[in-house]
């Protein structure tokens, strides 16, 4: 799941307008951002499901550190720390929660590959509700998150701009449109397995 995380972050922006959107977008992908260097270092890996090319939803993801329950909590705290220093407690709490939301949303779609403890030690279960086994349903769920996030953002952006600086209203529409296009492009690329 990629686009769905961005959709959730956009919806959070509508509820917590003081949090910069770029920070929410970065936070919502925080676990995957850290996953990339670990993947390149072969500390975490993707294994295509047998008999598939490993496209949308067809991978077992051994992200045993970044996507473990404890690892996600730790990364959420790590991400929140600079925000606490720069923007205060509430914004830091929101950003930390958004980082952790990645684990919660991934829990819904992943196969049983999300460990509770970092490193997936033997004797502890790995979890995942496996919505990716139903790729159409998973894609619809992601699309719903993108549309919900865009609609929430659009309403909040227009209302705030109309109240504070009506002359900038066109910018609110442009930002909301860019959000929608970005979500559809990202989801489309993910579905195509590019």
């Amino acid at each position, binding site marked *: 799941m990629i686009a769905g995380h*961005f959709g959730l972050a956009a919806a959070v922006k509508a509820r917590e307008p003081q949090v910069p959107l770029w920070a929410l977008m970065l936070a919502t992908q925080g676990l995957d*951002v850290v996953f990339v260097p670990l993947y390149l270092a072969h500390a975490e890996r993707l294994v295509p499901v047998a008999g598939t090319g490993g496209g949308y939803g067809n991978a077992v993801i051994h992200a045993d550190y970044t996507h473990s329950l404890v690892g996600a909590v730790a990364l959420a705290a790590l991400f929140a720390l600079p925000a606490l220093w720069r923007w205060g*407690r509430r914004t830091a709490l929101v950003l930390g929660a958004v980082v952790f939301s990645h684990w919660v949303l991934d829990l819904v779609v992943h196969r049983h590959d999300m460990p509770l403890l970092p490193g997936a030690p033997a004797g502890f279960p790995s979890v995942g509700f496996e919505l990716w086994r139903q790729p159409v349903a998973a894609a619809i769920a992601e699309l719903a998150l993108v549309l919900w996030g865009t609609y929430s953002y659009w309403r909040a952006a227009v209302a705030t701009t109309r109240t504070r600086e009506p002359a900038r209203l066109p910018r609110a529409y442009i930002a909301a449109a860019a959000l929608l296009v970005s979500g559809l492009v990202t989801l489309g690329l993910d579905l195509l397995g590019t």
Partner: protein
Amino acid sequence: MPFFVGLLLFVVIVGWLDARLPWPRPRASAVRP
């Protein structure tokens, strides 16, 4: 690739557009009455 495209679109482009809207600013923890 969709991950990196998504980061570019959402964090950089949409984030830049959003930063030009008159949202309330986060309060820095250092600011006290």
